[in-house]
């Protein structure tokens, strides 16, 4: 930590009584194109260090970039989905600075002529203050531009894991040249205590959007989506915005939310003490949840941007842009609105599905024949619990929506009850096969053979003559003990309601 001294903090709620936060988010997304931005190397994660490289992405003398058309198309797709204006004509620019993981010591990026500008993303932010409801927030999009990623440095030795103080550094250029899209929001104001949640929801909505657009696999933990979080505070009623801090490369939704919260608490303390907030970049620490000072923007580099002379301008024709627009898939927000209406669930039930990240799973289960209520029930009640127990993502559970739909169908047809169904699910998760295979292998079908059930009922009556007598005497409630005995004898595989009917008929109470 900088200077080894903990920052003074003002408790979050208290900070908000005196200050209004302003947030801004810059998100970098690695595109999932087959090849890199300016050469034919595979744009793939992993691989032996420096195995996915060529003269172009290594920036060897004499090599030249050629722009990847698919990356431009993906960027336009993102821009259109974010309601942006797509430029008729724009250029790449060189951003000049020296760093060992930059093969050319400049990055091909875009500067004052981004491909997409001036859009928005509507998000629905969970608002505890609104009694479990949500608040609609429109996040303005300043720009979406395309650039190339840098290589990856590994600094060995030293305390900080950064280049200063390291014994030596290793550089892997596999990532160099992977297409990277930067999405910059306009300043988001007026969100108050929801600022951290807005950050979380925006990033999660953006992630869903990018996945739906099939432009990136958006794995934050592998760095395919990285966010820079800008926060500044304004003393309430002053109308004056304070200096912002920029917390770099936050790599999870939760971290981004925590970083905003921390910066609000920290900057409030700085402002309370009468000092200005320093214009600087900060680093977020996952373990402690604090941010520490990085490079001061006062000594910021002059990147000497100028139009990249090795590339021709990008001039997407209007026809092409309209083709891309026409081919856009249904976007997550529209899809959610449609599904909520189709499924006829309450706002609250639907929000629960969304918050659990189960919209897709439920939708596919419904497509496979289950009722929306059943699909919701099995995923949210049973499978969310199983996922939590095993510490896996819901989507990574080894059960398919079709399996879940089959289980629901077996219950609906009376072949399984809920208890047996849970055992079937357990079997599927344990890798014992499809639901039908588990039913067969474990012998879990409800005993619906009337002869067998009647025999079991007679046995139970014979074994509990006193209870049987009570029932005969009109104490119908006592029949429950006999039902239990039959269920036990059939190892739960009988339809309890039918068993009860048979007992009551046998004892003259039907």
């Amino acid at each position, binding site marked *: 930590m900088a200077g080894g001294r903990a920052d003074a903090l003002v408790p979050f709620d208290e900070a908000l009584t005196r200050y209004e936060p302003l947030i801004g988010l810059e998100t970098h997304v690695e595109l999932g194109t087959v090849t890199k931005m300016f050469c034919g190397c595979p744009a793939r994660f992993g691989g032996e260090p420096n195995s996915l490289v060529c003269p172009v992405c*290594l920036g*060897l*003398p004499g090599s030249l*970039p050629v722009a990847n058309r698919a990356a431009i198309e993906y960027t336009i797709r993102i821009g259109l989905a974010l309601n942006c204006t797509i430029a008729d004509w724009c250029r790449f620019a060189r951003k*000049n600075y020296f760093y*060992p993981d930059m093969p050319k010591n*400049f990055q091909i990026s875009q500067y004052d002529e981004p491909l997409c500008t001036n859009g928005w993303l509507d998000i629905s932010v969970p608002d505890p203050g609104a009694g479990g409801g949500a608040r609609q927030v429109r996040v303005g999009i300043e720009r979406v531009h395309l650039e190339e990623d840098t290589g990856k440095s590994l600094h060995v030795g030293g305390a900080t894991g950064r280049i200063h103080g390291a014994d030596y*550094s290793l550089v892997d250029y596999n990532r160099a040249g992977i297409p990277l899209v930067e999405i910059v929001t306009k300043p988001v104001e007026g969100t108050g205590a929801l600022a951290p949640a807005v950050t979380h929801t925006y990033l999660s909505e953006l992630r869903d959007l990018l996945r739906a657009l099939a432009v990136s696999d958006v794995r934050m933990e592998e760095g395919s989506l990285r966010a820079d979080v800008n926060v500044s505070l304004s003393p309430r009623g002053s109308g004056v915005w304070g200096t912002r801090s920029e917390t770099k490369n936050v790599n999870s939704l939760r971290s981004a939310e925590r970083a905003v919260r921390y910066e609000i608490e920290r900057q409030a303390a700085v402002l309370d003490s009468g000092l200005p907030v320093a214009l600087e970049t900060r680093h977020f620490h996952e373990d402690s949840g604090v941010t520490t000072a990085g490079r001061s923007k006062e000594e910021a580099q002059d990147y000497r*941007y100028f139009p990249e*002379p090795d590339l021709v301008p990008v001039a997407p024709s209007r026809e092409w842009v309209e083709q891309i627009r026409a081919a856009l898939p249904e976007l997550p927000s529209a899809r959610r609105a449609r599904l909520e209406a189709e499924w006829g669930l309450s706002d609250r039930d639907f929000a629960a599905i969304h918050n659990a990240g189960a919209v897709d799973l439920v939708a596919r289960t419904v497509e496979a024949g289950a009722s929306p209520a059943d699909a919701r029930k099995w995923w949210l009640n049973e499978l969310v619990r199983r996922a939590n127990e095993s510490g896996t993502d819901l989507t990574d559970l080894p059960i398919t929506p079709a399996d879940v739909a089959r289980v629901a169908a077996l219950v609906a047809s009376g072949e399984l009850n809920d208890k047996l169904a849970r055992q079937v699910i357990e079997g599927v998760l344990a890798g014992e096969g499809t639901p039908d295979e588990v039913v067969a292998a474990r012998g879990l079908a409800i005993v619906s053979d009337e002869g067998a059930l009647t025999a079991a009922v007679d046995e139970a009556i014979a074994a509990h003559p006193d209870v049987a007598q009570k029932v005969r005497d009109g104490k119908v409630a006592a029949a429950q003990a006999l039902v239990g005995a039959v269920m036990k004898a059939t190892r739960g595989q009988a339809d309890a309601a039918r068993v009860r009917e048979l007992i009551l008929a046998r004892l003259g109470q039907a």
Partner: protein
Amino acid sequence: MADELTRMSAAGLAAAIAGGEVSALEVTDAHLARIGEVDESVHAFLHVAEDGARRAARAVDERRAAGEPLGPLAGVPLALKDLFTTTDMPTTCGSAILNGWRPPYDATITQRLREAGVVILGKTNMDEFAMGSSTENSAFGPSHNPWDLTRVPGGSSGGSSAAVAAFEAPLAVGTDTGGSIRQPAAVCGVVGVKPTYGGSSRYGVVAFASSLDTPGPLARTVLDAALLHETMSGHDPCDSTSVDAPVPPVVAAARQADVSGLTIGVVPELGGEGYQPGVLARFGEAVELLESLGAKVIEVSCPHFSYALPAYYLIAPSEASSNLARFDGMRYGLRVGDDGTRSAEEVMALTREQGFGAEVKRRIMLGTYALSSGYYDAYYGKAQQVRTLIIRDFEAAFEQVDVLVSPSTPTTAFPIGERVDDPLAMYVADLCTIPSDLAGNAALSVPCGLAAEDGLPVGLQIMAPVLADDRVYRVGAAVEAALDSRRGHPLLDDAKGLG
């Protein structure tokens, strides 16, 4: 016999090889022998690839023996500027920072030459990273002008022009950013062409100024230059600034060699005060010659050409400051000070301090300054506006004329050492050539005689519109033919620098 072979034109050699009168290997050996004989004095080459050249020559002979069709330059030796990447030879760019670097890939042009059966004799000397007009900025010492060894061969492609003028190779490839083909061609008495920008691939050409760099041919005859132009040019998908259009019919134009019916413009801004009298005299005679050959000559003013030099010295260094950032000792080439105690930043700084020469550093600093925030608009931005005005001057001129002409250089070859301490005097050597680099149009320099006061060659520059490269060959070949027939022998027969 060997001497005869080195005096022959590329077209003549190709025909003799194709006809079985001489083997490609004999031709190559003759040129290697000539290099062995004179290059100690000329220093045109930084690297001579004897084995590689002989292998390439033998391959041509084998193909001929097998009855395979041969290209129009198969078996003809060539000298390649040391700015083109070559997998089998070092590529230094005349710089200590790349001393010994062996690229893992061939430039597109290197590859096309190999495929055409052209025999690459070696890599030629140049001003470091093509920055200069004399080869004196080479980290490996200057080349010498075969007309007078105490004088410069021009630059930056001075090794290429000297090799051709000294009969070490009938053909050479250079690059032109501010005149780096035409100026050395002019002062060595050979033909040099800057094709239309994008007409020849830059892939594998180590960049000086990306929006200006144009590879092109040097030869002793206009036809030879055209043959090489056609062989090395054409669209390259690896260079996005490469023009996706057929190569203009330059060989046919060189054979046509006729100016009747053409309107030729003389640019008054490229001449007059500051120009050597002998240069202006030869230029005036060349204009009269063109008229006598049937061309109509008029004067066409290009008022913004006077701003070309300052605009160039903002644009080229700006791009260079960024292009040359990659030379930091991290991945290839020289590395200085990596003793385990220094940071990467310090090693980068020491490497660049020691690896770059004074002119390269000067231009990196100029360019860094011109691109700096707060200065960009006044320098780089303004220079780009001037560039647009120069393009418009050309467009307006070409509405009136088919080609423009001027001297190729203000003076003949200057003595080695004369301008090394005076960068501005050095920069002026490119006064006539820079406008076509900024505008990207085609231009050629063809010898038009010797200046009376020093007996050194003078070049006539012919400029044509973008993608009308054939016109410069057509006019250049007409001038060459008329002057050769008037003189009775090739101009280079008068070069006495090598005795």
